[in-house]
């Protein structure tokens, strides 16, 4: 029996009642994919996550991936689980039916991903990175590339990697120096070193498709000179089967704080055969088309890990006896102590709010890609662009806070490795760093997303939040309404201050991270408020729990974010070295 219970009921509620996933069936692309089976889909995917993936989490942490004779060996059970995942068709669920995919909306794929990555983040990263490559190839590969690679990648027969980072090119991807030299036959020779490449090598499939950012001779400096290449581990033979070994090798593995099972590779490309995707120098633009989907995926990892840490802490708190409460003669389970309850409720409320933000972002991404009405699609794209940095950064910041609270609930037993509480926090730590650090997300939010449409995109969201403030008031939920109103006023004030200081960018950048945090609490509060208003007809026990967490989130956590205004509006001067 697994120690992970997939949060199917809450995911289903958030998808149906907040994100309105059923409305997606109105779009032609989703009309026939079978969204009416959503409940069965979530519960079977959850069972798979709990029974097949979750048991790998501890063993993966202990064993880690190892580099043996030039190849990466994944921990016991990883390869078998991958085969089962592929056989059951989960890998293919969100992709184009044309290549064997199930055509599911991304928001549904992300709900499944939450459960799989909550079960084992280190295992789940392999499908995650593959998804990014599939999106990029689907959008920008030529017909031959699509028909060559997608029928293998979509079902999960082969996996893929994203090779951006180099020692001098981290947040600043424009600094990559890997070279790509054109050959007479139209292919390229790729040479250079990439670092931190997730699942850059492994033993779970018989080929790996690397997407590599590199520079062609004479390319302009910076992001405008970057091109994107397909570099397979094994070059294909005439029949399309893996043939000769390409010169793309994992030459070492990093030793890490967490996600031990996920191989983080130093990749050496030594005149490896590669194929240009699209046009030269357009690589960064192509990356942007899949960026929202991938960043949302990392946000969802924060939710999954938070849920996992929460479940473990709740179970521990019900069992561990310590101290007396309410005049009891015997020691009580620590869950009886108000301070422990506060920790558990904070964990639960943060996780639920982050889940809701991610679902709203996911459904906006789906509408942006699939709404046939260009105006609607543009509107959805703007919403997705605005919410993505919040979904990525706030959800992972909260995932970390939740995992650390999980340790705290365990007391000393959280700090030792035996209980597993520490692993969740170690594994969560990477999520604020990769796929654009949370600092970079905050900068993206204040300097690119807030100014969209001259502030109209943000203003439209704020107006929707205001409508919920009013509905909460009308429903007799005065304290919740007042808390959300307060936070919205703070958010508007902060937004106005940033707009006024656009001419001094450092002042705006200095407030970026506290602004994102405020935005996360306000948007989270909006969605928890909407949840309070959408409980009619839900299971009574579920509704009671949702009222409990949503009211707590709104009245006790959201107001804390109001205190961020001075930090957002202080400008850069106080940060200057004395």
């Amino acid at each position, binding site marked *: *029996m*697994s120690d992970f*219970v997939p949060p199917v009921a809450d995911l289903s509620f958030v998808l149906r009642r907040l994100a309105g996933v059923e409305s997606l069936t109105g779009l032609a692309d989703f009309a026939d994919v*079978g969204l*009416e*089976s959503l409940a*069965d*889909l979530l*519960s*079977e995917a959850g*069972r*798979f996550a*709990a*029974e*097949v993936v979750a048991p790998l989490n501890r063993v993966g942490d202990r064993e880690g991936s190892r580099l043996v004779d030039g190849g990466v060996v994944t921990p016991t059970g990883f390869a078998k689980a991958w085969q*089962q995942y592929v*056989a*059951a*068709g*989960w890998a*293919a*669920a969100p992709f184009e039916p044309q290549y064997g995919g*199930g055509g599911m909306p991304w928001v549904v794929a992300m709900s499944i991903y939450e459960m799989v990555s909550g079960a084992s983040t280190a295992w789940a990263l392999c499908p995650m990175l593959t998804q990014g490559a599939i999106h990029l190839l689907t959008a920008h590969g030529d017909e031959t590339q699509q028909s060559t690679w997608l029928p293998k990648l979509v079902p999960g027969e082969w996996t893929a990697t994203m090779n951006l980072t180099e020692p001098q090119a981290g947040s600043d991807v424009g600094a990559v120096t890997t070279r790509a030299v054109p050959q007479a036959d139209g292919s390229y020779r790729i040479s250079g070193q990439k670092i931190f490449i997730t699942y850059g090598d492994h033993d779970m499939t018989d080929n790996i498709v690397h997407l590599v950012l590199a520079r062609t001779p004479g390319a302009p400096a910076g992001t405008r000179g970057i091109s994107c290449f397909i570099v397979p581990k094994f070059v294909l033979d005439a029949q399309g089967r893996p043939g000769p070994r390409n010169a793309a090798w994992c030459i070492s593995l990093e030793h890490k704080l967490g996600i031990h099972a996920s191989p983080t590779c130093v990749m050496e490309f030594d005149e490896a055969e590669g194929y240009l995707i699209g046009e030269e120098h357009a690589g960064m633009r192509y990356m942007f088309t899949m960026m929202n989907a991938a960043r949302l995926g990392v946000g969802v990892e924060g939710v999954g890990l938070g849920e996992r840490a929460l479940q473990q802490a709740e179970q521990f708190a019900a069992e561990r006896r310590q101290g007396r409460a309410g005049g009891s003669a015997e020691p009580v389970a620590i869950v009886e102590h108000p301070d422990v309850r506060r920790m558990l409720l904070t964990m639960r409320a943060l996780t639920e709010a982050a889940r809701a933000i991610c679902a709203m972002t996911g459904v906006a991404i789906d509408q942006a890609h699939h709404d046939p009405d260009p105006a609607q699609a543009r509107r959805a794209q703007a919403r997705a662009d605005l919410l993505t940095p919040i979904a990525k950064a706030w959800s992972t910041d909260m995932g970390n806070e939740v995992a650390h609270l999980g340790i705290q609930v365990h007391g000393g037993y959280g700090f030792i490795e035996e209980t597993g509480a520490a692993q969740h926090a170690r594994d969560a730590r990477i999520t604020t760093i990769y796929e654009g650090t949370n600092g970079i997300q905050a900068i993206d939010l204040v300097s690119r997303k807030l100014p969209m449409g001259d502030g109209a995109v943000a203003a439209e969201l704020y107006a929707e939040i205001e409508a919920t403030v009013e509905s909460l008031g009308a429903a007799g939920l005065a304290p919740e309404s007042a808390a959300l109103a307060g936070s919205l006023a703070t958010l508007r004030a902060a937004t106005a201050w940033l707009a006024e200081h656009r001419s001094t960018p450092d002042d705006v950048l200095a407030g970026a991270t506290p602004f994102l945090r405020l935005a996360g609490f306000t948007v989270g509060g909006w969605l928890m408020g909407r949840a309070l208003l959408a409980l009619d007809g839900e299971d009574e026990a579920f509704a009671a729990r949702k009222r409990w967490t949503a009211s707590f989130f709104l009245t006790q956590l959201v107001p804390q974010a109001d205190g961020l205004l001075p930090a957002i509006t202080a400008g850069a001067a106080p940060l200057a070295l004395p």
Partner: protein
Amino acid sequence: MNVIVCVKQIPDPALPGALDSSTNTLKRDGKLILDESDSYGVEMALQLVDKAGGGEVSLVSMAPNGEVSGLRTALAMGAAKAVLVSDPALQGSDALTTARVLAAAVGRIGGADLVIAATESSDGYTGTVPEQLAEVLGLPSVTFAKHVEIDGSTLKASRQTEDGYDEVECPLPALISVTAGVVEPRYPSFKGIMAAKSKPVDTVTAGDLGVDPVGWAGAGQQISDVAKAPERAAGEIVEDDGEGFAKIVSFLENLKVI
């Protein structure tokens, strides 16, 4: 070859269960899932039909409130159709009534070469329904089957015993009960889950089947008392001073497991 599998839908064992204090039985009014014990029977049926090169797997289940969640899992694994008996009058049915109901449901589908059940359910553990069902159906019964082969119209099974297994044969049609772990149940595939929605589930009442529900009053069994399981005692910690193995051996000898 056509196989009918009896599947029980039970409260999720991962969630805290509750007893109905008036009847001392498990509350079954929430969502029910496929009993894991039955997933082995479903898998075995799918494999046998696959090997035979034709035919289909059907399901019969008795559950309250028209519950189909567990049936959907088995349909998503690959079963073709199901008969669900759902009738408030059947509440409190004892094992024998359950067997009569299932027998009638098996008859409603008809044409079974083989009926498969689990040795016992994971929420009730009565463990008598398969044999009673065979008796009502007038079929030979092979219990605790751990390996099954079909040879023409003969069933060959290895039957788990306390110290090994018996090789038994019987003519088809027959009823077997299978133990957990005999096969590795597949996980429903994404496509299977999608397809399950449109597979037929024939929902009937006891009256439709011509079975007389006896309910609590006429049940041949009664739950006289329910007691809490004793709390687990603290384990014993053995310091390994180089002789730890001897202590483990004597511990296991005391338990009479070696």
